[in-house]
């Protein structure tokens, strides 16, 4: 069991309140996923050559000011860092590969959670309320988000196994369910040079879709291929810098409900996560049909 949450704001005036609207949604999924929680928030994109990297230090204590100074010495360019405890978002004008290589050698205890122009990613073990508090989710602003609460059923409870998973840039995926052929998918992708970070089934789906997007599929085509390639139970919610996409397996084993108003589109595993949204009782509510691809653009 797990809980899925998504929110896309159609009304730009609500964007400063994105995190504030999220928190009750996330907490509503606590019973479905009490062991870990995560959030991918998509903001206005940083200017063209810049990229953002979300960095996670786990239990390691990082002196972020010292980290910023060391980075500035090692790699020329414009670097900006904002941090919360064991997490930082680095905006950089340097090449992403160059920064990642430097991180690997100079600060190997750091994990890169996401890369892109819009995405910031947070995930950690602990109750959703504790994770939200730890990183100050309530204060976030942005255009749209994807969040998850996890109750692990098939792999370990670690920050790396928490959702959202990312692949490539500005792409993330959360999953409620379990896949039965993740190893098959992995054996197909690894010879193509695609590297995996965990043994989690969801990571296989995430990397499969991102691979298809990189090969030129649009999200709809990529997901359609997934119907053939991915076996198991799933409600997937995906986020890119431009859109949210939702899909359920043919048996609709895992729940999902959508609420849409003039101001927002909200997605959750259950209505109880939507109950606190403004004017939700006048929203158009529907249960997404199995094997239909739903997507919403900012």
């Amino acid at each position, binding site marked *: 069991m797990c809980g899925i949450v998504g929110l896309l704001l159609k009304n730009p005036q609500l964007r400063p309140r994105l995190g504030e609207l999220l928190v009750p949604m996330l907490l509503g999924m606590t019973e479905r996923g009490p062991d870990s929680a995560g959030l991918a928030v998509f903001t206005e994109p940083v200017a063209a050559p810049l990229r953002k990297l979300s960095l996670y230090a786990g239990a390691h204590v990082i002196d972020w000011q010292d980290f910023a100074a060391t980075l500035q010495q090692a790699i020329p360019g414009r670097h900006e860092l904002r941090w919360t405890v064991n997490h930082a978002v680095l905006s950089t004008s340097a090449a992403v590969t160059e920064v990642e290589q430097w991180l690997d050698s100079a600060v190997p205890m750091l994990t890169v959670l996401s890369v892109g122009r819009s995405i910031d990613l947070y995930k950690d073990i602990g109750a959703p309320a504790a994770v939200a508090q730890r990183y100050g989710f309530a204060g976030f602003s942005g255009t749209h988000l994807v969040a998850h609460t996890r109750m692990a059923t098939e792999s370990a409870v670690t920050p790396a196994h928490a959702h959202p998973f990312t692949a490539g840039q500005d792409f993330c995926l959360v999953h409620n369910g379990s896949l039965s052929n993740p190893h098959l998918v992995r054996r197909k992708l690894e010879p193509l040079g695609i590297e995996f970070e965990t043994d989690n089934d969801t990571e296989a789906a995430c990397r499969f879709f991102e691979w298809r997007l990189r090969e030129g599929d649009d999200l709809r085509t990529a997901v359609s291929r997934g119907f053939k390639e991915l076996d198991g139970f799933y409600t997937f919610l995906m986020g890119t810098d431009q859109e949210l996409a939702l899909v359920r397996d043919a048996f609709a084993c895992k729940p999902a409900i959508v609420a849409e108003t003039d101001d927002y589109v909200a997605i959750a595993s*259950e*209505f*109880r*996560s939507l*109950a606190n949204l403004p004017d939700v009782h006048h929203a158009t509510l529907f*249960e997404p049909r*199995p094997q239909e691809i739903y997507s919403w653009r900012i």
Partner: protein
Amino acid sequence: MAHLSQAAAAPMEFDLARISVRELNRYLHRELPKTPAAKIVIANPDGAHSIACGLDIEVEVQINGHVGYYAAGMNQHAHVTVNGNAGPGTAENMMSGSVRVRGFASTSAGASAHGGCLIIEGDASLRCGISLKGADIVVGGSVGSFAAFMAQAGRLVICGDAGDALGDSLYEAVIYVRGAVKSLGADARFEPMTQADIDTVAALLQIAQLGHDAAEFRRVASARQLYHWNADASLQY
């Protein structure tokens, strides 16, 4: 008359923004008077699970809003109305009484229900009436795939369309469907409507307060070919 004066009593209101589902259900199970009681009205369900589950008393319960999993599950004698949508497993394992959902119902509505009547005015998702054991279900809208899967007894009336595998592996439950059927499940077949079938559908539509013509429905029942193992056709299973 005591009976009339009690029936006319003001409804008892419970606000789930103030009390827990456990407190509400404990009251309904243990403290509600056994004689005809005032109507129970529940506010702010907000998708909570197991609201009005396991009732065992003849009482009218009205829930104003959307409910989560297993609303009115295991119901016996009570008449529960959901003025909203219902999550998975609504009225699952109902024994008697009635449950009415004014909106749509998620997966497995009326699963394994033995008796009583479940009315869903909107659509029902997949597996509606799975393993039905004797209850009646009337769906005002359409049903998703695998409706009445392995249903053993009871009636499922579908006023709209049905998804894939309608009535897969049916036993003795009977399905009446008014709209299109995407596909029938294994061993399910269309059968002619008799006058008795038309009367049955008309009676159930009347209970559900739906104004369709019973003659527009088609009957789906088991061909009973799966009741016995056919050793000569083992590859067909």
